[in-house]
């Protein structure tokens, strides 16, 4: 009797867990849909911006633009790590943290001083635990990042780069290839890697440029940097939901499998108990005769 009751209790507990993971899976699925829409909606701006920069920029003249400055020797770099505020998303946060640690290590081996800027409780928690100095930690960015969020991250870094306090800025984020594939990536946002213009539809010399190519570039290069960070934010947000959905789906499946086994064991125990009771009754009756 005791054994069957024990199994029943476990069945009930696993059922409740499955209910929770199932719900989380559905929540992640609906958030994923909206997050994916935001990833796609962000593409036209980035594309057109890259097109125009590629068209206006003469690579030989890059020293004229502070954001394109290539330092001869890198002394100090910033690493901006994007993680989630929440867990229960499989190896999502761990992968990002591992990527960031690898990058920090490589930079330090090259004698570069690294300052860490982290978005998301998970990343901040890890590096604080490692007793790393976290130059800035942000937990206020939701799973719907805005262009303003990106600007508030990018602007201080750009200012430090222009003041020559930083020689490079890297972003560690999760690339959103699909809901199933969200590998961690490192993107160097500063100095700006100038996008190359592939199409040669009409020379820039025929363009009316107002006020001038230099001034236009100096105004729109910061847009490009902010936009790179914005895209990293939305891709990471979508990747988080994708990873959580996958993790919760396999948790739900596993709970289902476990329930099958538990139910089978429970039935066997129940039948054994009934058989035993009958045997006892039969035995008792036989004893009376």
């Amino acid at each position, binding site marked *: 009797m005791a054994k069957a009751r024990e199994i029943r209790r476990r069945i009930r507990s696993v059922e409740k867990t499955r209910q929770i993971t199932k719900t989380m899976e559905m929540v992640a699925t609906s958030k994923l849909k909206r997050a994916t829409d935001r990833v796609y909606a962000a593409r036209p*701006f980035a594309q057109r911006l890259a097109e125009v920069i590629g068209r206006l920029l003469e690579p030989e003249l890059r020293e004229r633009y502070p954001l394109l400055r290539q330092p001869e020797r890198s002394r100090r770099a910033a690493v901006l790590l994007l993680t989630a505020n929440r867990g229960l998303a499989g190896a999502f946060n761990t992968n990002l943290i591992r990527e960031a640690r690898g990058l920090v290590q490589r930079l330090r081996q090259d004698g570069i001083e690294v300052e860490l800027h982290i978005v998301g409780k998970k990343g901040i928690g890890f590096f604080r635990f490692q007793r790393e100095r976290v130059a800035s930690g942000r937990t206020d960015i939701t799973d719907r990042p805005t262009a303003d969020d990106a600007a508030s991250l990018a602007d201080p870094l750009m200012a430090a780069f222009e003041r020559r306090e930083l020689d490079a800025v890297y972003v560690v984020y999760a690339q959103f290839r699909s809901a199933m594939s969200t590998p961690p990536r490192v993107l160097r946002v500063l100095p700006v890697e100038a996008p190359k213009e592939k199409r040669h539809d009409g020379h820039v010399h025929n*363009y009316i440029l107002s006020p001038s190519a230099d001034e236009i570039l100096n105004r729109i290069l910061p847009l490009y940097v902010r936009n790179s960070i914005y895209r990293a934010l939305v891709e990471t947000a979508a990747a988080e939901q994708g990873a959580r959905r996958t993790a919760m789906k396999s948790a739900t499946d596993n709970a289902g499998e476990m329930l099958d086994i538990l139910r089978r064991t429970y039935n066997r125990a129940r039948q054994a108990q009934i058989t035993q009771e009958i045997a006892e009754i039969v035995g008792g009756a036989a004893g009376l005769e």
Partner: protein
Amino acid sequence: MIMPAERLRVAVISPERTIYEGDADMVVAPAWDGQVGILRGHAPMVVLLGHGDLRIRLGSAEEQFFVAGGFLQVVDDVVTVLSERAEAE
């Protein structure tokens, strides 16, 4: 000589989404140094924007947006407005 298309193609894009996409007869934008009007057949141009109203006219209808910063590009009767601040009014 490239024949101008029937109408201008206009897109207003912010980092977060495409705010407007459609045809127009005329676009009036707040350039950094004053208003700039664009009709079809305009020479290729890239101009920085200040802040103010962006008006897109098609027939007697007019769409109006507020933009601050960013730039406007015209190539082959395609007008692209990229701005971090762009809202329908």
